[in-house]
């Protein structure tokens, strides 16, 4: 991923996963055709079996262990392909190893490159053949590997190296503290669901007996039997409600304390009132109790909660995984002036860390050289950038907006990483506040209406009809239980789980739980050009002067701009220059030396074909580097299909007009703007927003990140700069643009199913509420109507699952 190659002298090279942005959807036939690498399926040079030594080594291991079936099993999933191993830096695993009481060692790692079940099988089978391994289990949902073995800490390097040789990238992952609390909530919800299910089944069984007995014409149920059955129902239902209702009661109490109301208030009130009334009826030996309704209601609501929690958990796990993989990127300045990129945890106190413009600072430390504007919004909540000078204390999680900085690390290790992860995830979740979810919008109007309706019913029966207080209260409770937003609480989460799960499997990672609904409302898609519509890395054209190239690369290493990264990868090992300032959208400067756009370097020569970078040095003729830029392979098709979907497709770029026009014409985009600074992009997008458009911004560079944040929803390819991935709602993998289309389509389908679900549950209320107000709702009718509406909503949501499989 990083454009900076580790210096050749770097010891003990292990292998790393091929870029996830490589094309993954090669057809099965292509893979089997002659001339393709027998391991990864990419074209192999001139009749050879393998494309590179890495693939040959991986193939040897797999065949040597008799696991050749992997290649056949992989074909079960047409999109999956073996990974091409690439050299990568070695991790310091020893810190993460946990010694177990029984003498074994354990390590948890995040696995990058996991594509399908075959990968899981391969990793586990390879580990199973190692005699020392006691546990090797991949969790496919969270993409983590738990590795246990008998032996020393040094064995970890060998075992991990073995898996990395196969092409997977393993990153030690021990932010378990972060996931522990989520697991607790999830398990609490599941336990509540189980208890509610147990009680619902049994109380319903008894209730059917009561109803059948009451309905019997010749031999109705005796009062003693009925009282017994009511008492048994009460004894099952009340502890179950006390246990399984806690999530709702707690949330309702919290809302009431803040003097607001939410969906849980009518739920809690309804359940408690109905239970209390039913208990009174039981004590008085009356006919009707509603224990079954109360418990079934909780059961269905908990199903919704569990689904909702799962969708959120997945979005969160995705964000964590991204962070764990990103956090690897810390550039430590070596005494000889070269840069070694290594894990955050490997940075020792006192190390000098180089932070490129647009990069997140990975360690807490003191700024040594360079001055730059820092975006500290994640750390302090300050929305305006802060100017930092040498001597300033900086914190992990801060974004560097300006020049390359050198930082002396003062605090490192898991503590910093953990704090940073928590901050980033919290920031991502806080952004939810900008957008009111569909269900909440409905609930806001729904809850007061329900309370009012129940109150009016009570008053009507008590005063107008002269009913006893108990009788009036019972009717009012029936209204509450009938209107309980049970189907409403299921309507959205059920759809969300299915849709996000499907996107996740397609390599699209939703980072925000509300992104799906925002995506569905998009009517304008705005693309950035460089790295988004076009392939992320360009090839350097011509044969530039090596001295100029090295000098240019020493500036370019400070930037994440695609042109700069291409330049660095073409130059090889590079010594970074000091005091480089990045002017987003323009270029880089160090003193009088400038690298960037034509205008930035003060050049006025006639325009050339293709993207270019100029290097201006004092006293020397400016040097031009030109690059070949190709649109992504499916860009033309996707732009056309987006337009067929009725979306306006636009292109805004900071590049020169000729270049933007060329790409725009190739892709058939009429509405394009060139020469946009980041500020321009934001104002253009905000302008569209004011016109009432819902904009999806797809971009990858630092200069896009303000625009990504300004748009109503944003997407970034997995190759994007750190900033952009932090900001974007959707991160997609692969070298194609198709995920954008799939995500939009899925979101639209999901939204329409959500709407149907809401209409179904509200329609049911419109029919049932008058009956409840009139006092005609008997326990069996309440139970039947409520369960059937919930089931209907669930079945309707599952329809989406079947549709998407096709």
């Amino acid at each position, binding site marked *: 991923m990083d454009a900076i190659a580790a210096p050749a002298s770097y010891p003990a090279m292990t292998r790393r996963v091929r870029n996830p942005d490589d094309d993954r959807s090669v057809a099965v036939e292509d893979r089997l055709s002659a001339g393709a690498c027998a391991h990864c399926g990419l074209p192999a040079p001139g009749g050879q079996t393998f494309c590179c030594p890495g693939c040959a080594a991986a193939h040897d291991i797999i065949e040597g262990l008799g696991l050749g079936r992997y290649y056949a*099993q992989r074909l*079960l999933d047409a999109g999956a392909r073996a990974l091409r191993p690439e050299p990568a830096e070695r991790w310091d695993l020893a810190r993460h190893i946990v010694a177990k009481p*029984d*003498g*074994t060692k354990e390590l948890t790692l995040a696995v990058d490159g996991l594509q*399908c*079940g*075959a990968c*899981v*099988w391969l990793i*586990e089978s390879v*580990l*199973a053949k190692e005699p020392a*391994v*006691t*546990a*090797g*289990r*991949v*969790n*496919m*949902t*969270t993409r983590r590997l738990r590795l246990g073995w*008998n032996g020393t800490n040094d064995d970890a390097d060998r075992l991990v190296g073995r898996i990395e040789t196969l092409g997977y990238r393993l990153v030690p992952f021990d932010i378990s503290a972060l996931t522990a609390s989520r697991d607790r909530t999830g*398990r609490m919800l*599941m*336990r509540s669901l*189980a*208890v509610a299910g*147990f009680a619902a*089944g*049994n109380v319903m*069984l*008894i209730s059917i007996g009561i109803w059948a007995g009451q309905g019997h014409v010749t031999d109705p149920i*005796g009062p003693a*039997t009925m009282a*017994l*059955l009511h008492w*048994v129902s009460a004894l*099952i239902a009340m502890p179950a409600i006390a246990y399984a209702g806690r999530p709702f009661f707690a949330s309702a109490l919290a809302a009431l304390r803040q003097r607001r109301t939410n969906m849980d208030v009518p739920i809690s009130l309804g359940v408690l009132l109905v239970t209390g009334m039913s208990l009174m009826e039981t004590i008085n030996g009356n006919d009707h109790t509603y224990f079954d309704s109360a418990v079934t209601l909780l059961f269905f609501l908990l199903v919704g909660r569990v689904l909702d929690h799962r969708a959120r958990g997945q979005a969160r796990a995705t964000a964590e995984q991204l962070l764990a993989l990103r956090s690897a990127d810390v550039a430590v300045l070596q005494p000889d002036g070269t840069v070694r990129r290594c894990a955050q945890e490997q940075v020792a106190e006192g190390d000098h860390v180089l932070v490129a413009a647009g990069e997140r600072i990975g360690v807490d430390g003191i700024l040594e050289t360079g001055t730059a504007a820092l975006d500290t919004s994640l750390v302090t909540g300050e929305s305006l950038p802060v100017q930092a000078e040498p001597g300033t204390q900086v914190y992990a999680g801060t974004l560097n907006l300006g020049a390359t900085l050198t930082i002396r690390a003062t605090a490192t290790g898991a503590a910093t990483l953990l704090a940073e992860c928590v901050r980033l995830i919290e920031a991502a979740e806080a952004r939810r506040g900008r957008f009111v979810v569909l269900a909440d919008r409905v609930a806001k109007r729904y809850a007061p209406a329900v309370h009012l309706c129940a109150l009016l019913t009570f008053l009507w029966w008590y005063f107008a009809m002269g009913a006893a207080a108990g009788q009036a209260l019972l009717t009012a409770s029936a209204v509450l239980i009938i209107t309980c937003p049970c189907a409403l609480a299921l309507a959205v989460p059920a759809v969300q789980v299915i849709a996000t799960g499907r996107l996740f499997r397609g390599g699209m990672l939703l980072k925000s739980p509300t992104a799906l609904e925002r995506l569905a409302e998009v009517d304008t898609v705005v693309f950035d050009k460089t790295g988004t519509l076009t392939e992320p890395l360009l090839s350097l054209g011509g044969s530039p002067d090596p001295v100029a190239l090295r000098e240019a690369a020493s500036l370019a290493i400070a930037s994440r701009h695609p042109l700069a990264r291409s330049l660095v990868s073409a130059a090889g090992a590079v010594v970074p220059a000091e005091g480089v300032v990045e002017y987003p959208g323009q270029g880089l400067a160090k003193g009088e030396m400038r690298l960037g756009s034509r205008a930035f370097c003060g050049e006025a020569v006639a325009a050339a074909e293709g993207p270019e970078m100029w290097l201006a040095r004092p006293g020397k003729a400016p040097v031009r580097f030109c690059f070949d830029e190709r649109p992504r392979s499916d860009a033309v098709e996707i732009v056309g299909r987006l337009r067929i979907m009725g979306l306006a497709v636009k292109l805004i770029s900071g590049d020169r007009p000729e270049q933007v026009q060329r790409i725009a014409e190739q892709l058939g985009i009429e509405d394009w703007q060139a020469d946009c600074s980041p500020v321009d992009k934001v104002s253009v997008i905000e302008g569209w927003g004011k016109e009432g458009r819902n904009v999806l911004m797809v971009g990858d560079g630092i200069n896009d990140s303000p625009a990504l944040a300004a748009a109503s929803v944003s997407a970034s390819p997995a190759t994007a700069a750190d900033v952009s991935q932090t900001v974007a709602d959707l991160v997609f993998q692969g070298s194609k643009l198709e995920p954008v289309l799939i995500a939009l389509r899925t979101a639209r389908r999901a939204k329409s199913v959500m709407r149907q679900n809401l209409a179904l549950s509200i329609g049911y209320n419109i029919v049932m509420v008058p009956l409840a107000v009139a006092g005609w709702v008997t326990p069996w009718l309440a139970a039947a109507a409520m369960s059937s509406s919930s089931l209907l909503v669930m079945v309707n949501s599952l329809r989406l699952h079947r549709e998407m499989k096709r």
Partner: protein
Amino acid sequence: MTIILYLLVVSLTIAAGGLWFFMWSLRSGQYDDLDGAANRILFDDAADAPIKKKAPTQAIP
């Protein structure tokens, strides 16, 4: 109608057994990786259970 009493006790006992079973499966982590479970079934010799703990091999002195 004393038969009802017996039936109630029997049915509740069976259901409580089911509840206990579910709680056990939840505690033992069977709901932690539903995607993995769905895929593992496709492979003939995939480890159905996590690799069994092997006793540390110790040489007898």
